[in-house]
């Protein structure tokens, strides 16, 4: 069963923003200080435009692999598929690390053993082996959970926010703005995620506009979260990871009722788990399509991809700062290649069909 337009909109509005709530707010606070909203706003607008382009590509009703094969042949398409899968796995690495930080911070009260996180990879291996078409129903469940979780966290934290901390606008200057954009490239790859899904959902009239607006709607919630986050933590925002689990801890009734915000935090963490697995699932799907044949291939690829991620996470377990810094700083340029350049090139090649009106 293919995901419907509604489910794609759910993903863009409610699931995609959740992946940006762990490390990104603190990273932004470090780079752009009180101006952390502006780089995100720029990224959101850019991504929204790219998502519009990707959804236009979805009108061809064939996958990105099929599109490339049509234009460049089998070999080139397979090379492309391997590159895209490699990128998706690379992109998945940071969310996995974030998920690990989240689990360690909010589900435990002392530092747990490294292996405690291992079951995640079993879950990921299972989900990744499944066809991407099954995601639609998943998003139907996740979208309300995400909306409730986000609303709950914001509701419990907004009272402690000092929005004056966001003033004066522009204090970080152009340098802070550019650094903020550069350092957040690794979180704004939703267009690449969507690109790997085209052809797996039918394009309905107006989906390009609706999807873009839904993404911007989710982006507004993200911006509000960031404003609340900086309002609550101000100068110590750089220390607060995972951001979404920290921001609501100061709710005044928590002393009487306990950490009821954990209900909402758990909901968001649950949604996040599926968001983290998505690029791995897409990598497996892309490779399976490119080298398809045996029905055992997706499970084997899934095990292989997850073993690779597990090995990477285990190897870099003791150098988290350096790893994050390398991905967000040194290797930031890789992300726009696949999230911006690739969709635009594909749109240029396979864009509007003749005499076709964009609906």
């Amino acid at each position, binding site marked *: 069963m293919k995901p419907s337009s509604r489910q794609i909109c759910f993903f863009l509005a409610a699931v995609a923003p959740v992946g940006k709530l762990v490390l990104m707010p603190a990273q932004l606070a470090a780079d752009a200080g009180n101006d952390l909203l502006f780089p995100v706003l720029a990224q959101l607008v850019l991504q929204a435009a790219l998502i519009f382009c990707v959804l236009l590509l979805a009108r061809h009703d064939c996958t990105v692999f099929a599109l490339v094969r049509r234009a460049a042949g089998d070999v080139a398409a397979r090379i492309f598929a391997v590159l895209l899968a490699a990128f998706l796995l690379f992109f998945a690495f940071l969310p996995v690390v974030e998920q690990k930080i989240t689990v360690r911070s909010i*589900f435990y*009260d*002392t*530092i*747990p053993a490294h292996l405690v996180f291992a079951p995640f990879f079993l879950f990921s291996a299972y989900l990744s082996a499944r066809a991407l078409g099954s995601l639609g129903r998943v998003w139907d469940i996740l979208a309300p959970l995400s909306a409730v979780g986000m609303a709950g966290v914001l509701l419990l934290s907004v009272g402690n926010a000092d929005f004056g901390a966001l003033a*004066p606008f522009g204090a970080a200057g152009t340098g802070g703005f550019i650094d903020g954009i550069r350092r957040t490239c690794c979180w704004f790859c939703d267009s690449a995620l969507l690109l790997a899904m085209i052809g797996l959902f039918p394009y309905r009239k107006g989906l390009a506009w609706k999807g873009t607006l839904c993404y911007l709607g989710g982006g507004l919630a993200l911006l509000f979260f960031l404003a609340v986050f900086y309002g*609550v*933590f101000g100068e*110590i925002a750089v220390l607060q990871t995972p951001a979404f689990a920290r921001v609501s801890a*100061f709710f005044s009734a928590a002393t009487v009722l306990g950490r009821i915000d954990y209900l909402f935090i758990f909901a968001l963490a649950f949604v996040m788990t599926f968001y983290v697995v998505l690029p791995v699932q897409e990598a497996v799907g892309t490779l399976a399509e490119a080298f398809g044949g045996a029905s055992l291939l997706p499970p084997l690829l899934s095990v292989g991809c997850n073993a690779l991620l597990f090995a990477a996470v285990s190897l870099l377990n003791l150098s988290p700062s350096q790893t994050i810094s390398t991905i967000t700083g040194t290797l930031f340029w890789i992300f726009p290649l696949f999230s911006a350049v690739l969709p635009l090139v594909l749109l240029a090649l396979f864009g509007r069909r003749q005499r076709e009106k964009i609906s």
Partner: protein
Amino acid sequence: MKKFLKCFPVKLWILLFALLVLTFFSNDFGLVDIQKTALVLAAGIDRDEDGFRLTAQIAVPKGTDRTTGGTSSVEIDGRGSTVSECISDLYARTGWVPKLIYCDLVVLGESAAEKDVFDCLDAFLRNEYMPDSCLLAACAGSAGELLSSTSAIDDTSALALEKLFSDAAEQAGQVMTTTLREFAIGYFGESRSGYMPYVRAQAQEGSDQGQGGSQSGGQSMASPKTEEKIYSARETAIFSDGVLVGILSPEETFAFSLLKGNVYAGTFSVDGTSYLVLRDRGDIRVTASASPAFSLFVDCTVQHYGESHTSAPEQLVKGTLSRQEEEAVSARLTQSLQALWTSCTQAECDLLFFRRSLRRASPAVYAAWKDLPLSALPVTVQARVRSLR
């Protein structure tokens, strides 16, 4: 049956992954081995010649019979050159894994507050399992001794202290509480200043006649009686660059509370008459046109709450203030606000976040005036008290 067997593998998968998800989303299955875990309720920090001494007040299991309700605790000291080392020392000496997740109070002794307190608070700020919402307090003398003292009102001194820092006490204007988060924001901000309640312990008069048997430390009813203490936190310690630079009197603390707009149903007395604050609006404003100016303004509505002489029932039922009374009370509160400002300027403590306000106004204004001493700043102080009509 055939159908069932056919779908069994899928159901097995679902079951397996449901179990894995359960594992993933549970912590240690709630199995906190109380015999190996120290639930730290409060931490007291003092400096000594070797570094720091951290006194952890640890909750211990207590009998369940009706005569011994409440929380019992034991105080253990850890020593080290850093607070983190002190925590490790606690572990090494007791075999208990200290869990800071329940630590709601950090008390700084006089010696700890003599130098930059972030030497020690830094450990709590970077500890991801220590809640940033924990309360901070400074105390006269040693924090270890304060936590080890026997409270007259609770078996565990930390719980007795936390009663002083309740929301109700804060709304009454009796105490200015702060959390690790708020103090850290003040410290790392432009003003580099902060405050926390200043606790004093006093011997409870006639405590040896009172309820017997301190439970703190797990002492039995038969043990020799120790002196019971009551605590007061009506003063406020103010910090600049993390160093304790002054102590606000209870009147100044109340004025500070009014300025923050915290007070509701708080009382204060002027010339033998007590007043109840029904509405409080505080305003701290910085204007920076040609040169910066600071204004502190309090607007509150009050009613009579008690008098040192007998009044007629008609007077009692109204509780209103005459015009002269309004002016007299306004003058007294203005005086308290002025005293608060004087304390801040004498200590060069930017408690009211003048520099932060400058920075928020504009970076240029901040750069121009950030080094202006507080004592050179023109200040307008005004309290306006209105009677309940």
